[in-house]
């Protein structure tokens, strides 16, 4: 069974279910986790879940747009990761904590 055959064997729904599941994990993680870094990782998880559905549809409709979109999302995610991690480090330096519930003031 080569790759093409495998792809044809796995139906569209499976990809979508996987994507939705990953997205749901991301949402739940974002809502319940208290560590800022974990919250951040949950966001990445949601982004990649969406990426997966983009790729799936791009393949399904033989359209390259979806794949290009994925590259854009990855690029933005990378930039966001850089800025976000910098903020997290700054927050940790000034407040000595990463618990999101305790970071609720703009002023120190």
């Amino acid at each position, binding site marked *: 069974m080569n790759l093409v055959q495998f792809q044809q064997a796995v139906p569209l729904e499976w990809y979508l279910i996987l994507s939705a599941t990953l997205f749901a994990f991301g949402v739940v993680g*974002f*809502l319940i986790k208290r560590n800022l870094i974990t919250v951040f990782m949950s966001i990445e998880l949601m982004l990649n879940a969406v990426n997966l559905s983009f790729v799936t549809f791009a393949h399904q409709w033989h359209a390259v747009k979806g794949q290009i979109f994925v590259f854009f999302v990855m690029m933005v995610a990378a930039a966001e990761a850089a800025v976000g991690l910098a903020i997290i480090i700054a927050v940790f330096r000034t407040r000595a904590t990463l618990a999101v*519930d305790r*970071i*609720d003031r703009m002023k120190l």
Partner: protein
Amino acid sequence: MNGNLHIWLIPLLPFAGFLLNGILGRHLPKALVTIIALLAPLAAFGVVVNAALLAFSPMELRSWNGPGPIPGLLSLPYIETCPVGWINVGAFHIDYSFVLDQLSLVMLLVVTGVGLLIHIYSVGYMKHEEGYYRFFAYMNLFMFFMSVLVLAGNALLMFVGWEGVGLASYLLIGFYFQKTSAADAGKKAFIVNRIGDFGFLIAMFLLLANFGTLTFSEIATKIGMDPGWNGGVITVIALCMLLGAAGKSAQLPLYIWLPDAMEGPTPVSALIHAATMVTAGVYMIARSHAIFDHSPFALGVVAIVGAATALFAATIGLVQNDIKRVLAYSTVSQLGYMFLGCGVAAYSASIFHLMTHAFFKALLFLAAGSVIHGMGGEQDLRKMGGLRKKMPITFAVTTIGVLAIAGIPPFAGFFSKDAILYAAFAQGGTFGLVLWQVGAITALLTSFYMFRLWYLVFLGESRSHDAHPHESPWSMLGPLVILATLSTCGGWIGIGRFSSFLKPSVGLKTLESSAALEIPLMAVAGAIALVGWFIAHFFYKLKPAAPAQLATSFSGGYKLLLNKYFVDEFYGYTVVKPLLGISKYVLEYVVDFAILGGIAWLMGGIAMLSGAILQRWQSGNIRSYAAWLAAGAAAVLLFVLVPWSAVWPVAFDFLSKGSGH
């Protein structure tokens, strides 16, 4: 020849003077301010004279005799309209149109001519005053609005001038605004005039509703075409206009502002509160005579108001001790004469009296100013006396002014006053006779109080020890001499010639002279004036103690007159106090504080309460925001994905069936 006369320059030149002096005057040297202030009315006067010379050249005037139209190069009315309209709404158009006809030409000659003389006089009079430039800026502003009022071709443009002269009057009455009495007098003039303006506005609305136009000539044509326009709504319009005119021209019951207006500088009293602005009401009635001619009732009211005011003000003038107040009441009285003339449809006689009155009353006021100037600010007649030697020129011109206003031939006032009395008498019937009698009694009183003033100021011995009277400078005396000449000769035009000239403008009735009736009436009028002089001579020359005795023996009547019939107090209790009470207790406490304030507080309270509740949302807690975000997304998904239009009927069905069991 109807070339371009540029009559729009007549108002706009003084306006330019106002802008220059008003904006830059503070920084300009006094000489330059003077030049600007004098050039503006001088140039305007030049334009008017040019138009007048075109309208009737003196050469042809000399050969003219008879009732026909006076030949001239310029055919009147001459109209200039601004190419850009003012108001264009559907079929309703208002233009900036200036109309030069016989009526406005006479009025403009008076306004710009007398105005120019008073400007020149003011240079000397106001020399040492603070705010010299401010004074002349206001004076030029007044000239601007007054010429707009006179030239206006429609009622709305006239209203602009009407309000504008009110504004200028307010500013100039309150010129010494540091003085409470002056500031109050300005406010009083403005507020009392608002009552009259209300009448004018209502009249304009009614004109629009009934004729669809505010242009005087169109209204006159429309009224003339349909004989059905008589009485009824025309009477209402005319009475509303009369209210406006009574406000501006200080007639009963709205005359109370004019005596107080004497708080302004004396040249202002001469220009605005004697010669020009206060005659605007007479001018307005003459201008809209087509309306009044079609309502005999309104004309009768005009005549009654005029006659009553003339007599009423003259009696107050008998006992006043302030030189300017005497003149103020005499102005009110003379304006009453003009209204009386309008009321018997003798508009040309009214305008004739308006013109001569402008000459001799401006003269008297300016002479009074010269006296006050020479006496160092003293205005009380009881502290003057014996000024004949000290101020010979002022004495001479005042004498001419007094002779003119008293109606002694051959001075100007005699001819115009006689024309009005004759018109009243010629109206016939009991009404005409009563009007004539009131006019004649007023003439007697006028003659008496003017000679009283003359005796008290100039003759006898000086009653003041600390004053050092001196003659005024020539910039003040020059205009006085010119005005004295005009007061002497102004009446020689003759009412017959004058009314023939005005006939195209004021229509209908010209005074045909009938020697059989006129000469006895003239003799009576002259005799009345002389009797008044004799009484004054008796009281103030032969028996100087007599007035005081008379005042004590008739103390009730004397006090009544001295306190001006307590009219101000009466208005104070019946109008001002209740209004203040309503304003304070109903409008301020109930409407403003309770209702409006309450609503405002309620609104504020609702906003603050909802803010306090919604504020809790903005906790700063990231997971709370995230939860709301997720909840919102879930709600959107629910809204989009569930086919509600299919679900609702099923649910209703289920519920109704469930309740059915």
